[in-house]
């Protein structure tokens, strides 16, 4: 069963515009969410995270929004730059109770292409 889903395999955006990447989850125990960015032939790099006690976290051009009732989160990139072109993975973990050991459940990824 796919507990974390990214339903859009790809997204194409013009430079300077907003990129919105979406992610849905089904496991109510998840309480910490992360976004990773991956370039070809490299490992994923951590981008931004959000705890379930918040509904928004911002870091420069990147903002993550969490809607717990809908079990949905999104990553906004404003303004988008060609260097942002990469695969973006959403991930989730259940930290409460201290049993997750940091084990992450990942979505399938969304390929973002930002055109100059």
């Amino acid at each position, binding site marked *: 069963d796919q507990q974390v889903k990214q339903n859009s395999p790809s997204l194409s955006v013009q430079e300077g515009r907003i990129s919105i990447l979406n992610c849905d989850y089904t496991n109510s125990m998840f309480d910490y969410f992360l976004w990773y960015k991956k370039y070809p032939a490299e490992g994923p790099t951590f981008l931004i995270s959000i705890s379930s006690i918040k509904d928004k976290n911002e870091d420069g051009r990147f903002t993550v929004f969490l809607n717990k009732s809908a079990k949905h989160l999104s990553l906004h990139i404003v303004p988008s730059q060609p260097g942002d072109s990469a695969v973006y*993975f959403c991930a989730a973990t259940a930290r409460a109770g201290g049993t997750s*050991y940091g084990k992450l459940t990942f*979505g399938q990824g969304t390929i973002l292409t930002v055109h100059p």
Partner: protein
Amino acid sequence: GAGVSQSPSNKVTEKGKDVELRCDPISGHTALYWYRQRLGQGLEFLIYFQGNSAPDKSGLPSDRFSAERTGESVSTLTIQRTQQEDSAVYLCASSPRAIGGYTFGSGTRLTVV
């Protein structure tokens, strides 16, 4: 080292052979994770180490897969009698503590022919 190092970066092996994949985590990172990414899919958790112990091996797909860690440092993932469905990128990550947001290596691309 400065980052998580994995070797080899690429491995082509014949079906039925055994392979060993190596991970050198960031020095001092006690938590170490193995994931794999098959083509077009997300990352699948394989195993977690805290120090040299593996409290969570739940992601290992079969008994052909095993992993060990020594000296709270290097980890080796071994796949015995490889099958074509084992073809994937195997990623290792380490963290100073088990809370996520960890650092990944560049991975080993395994191709079983």
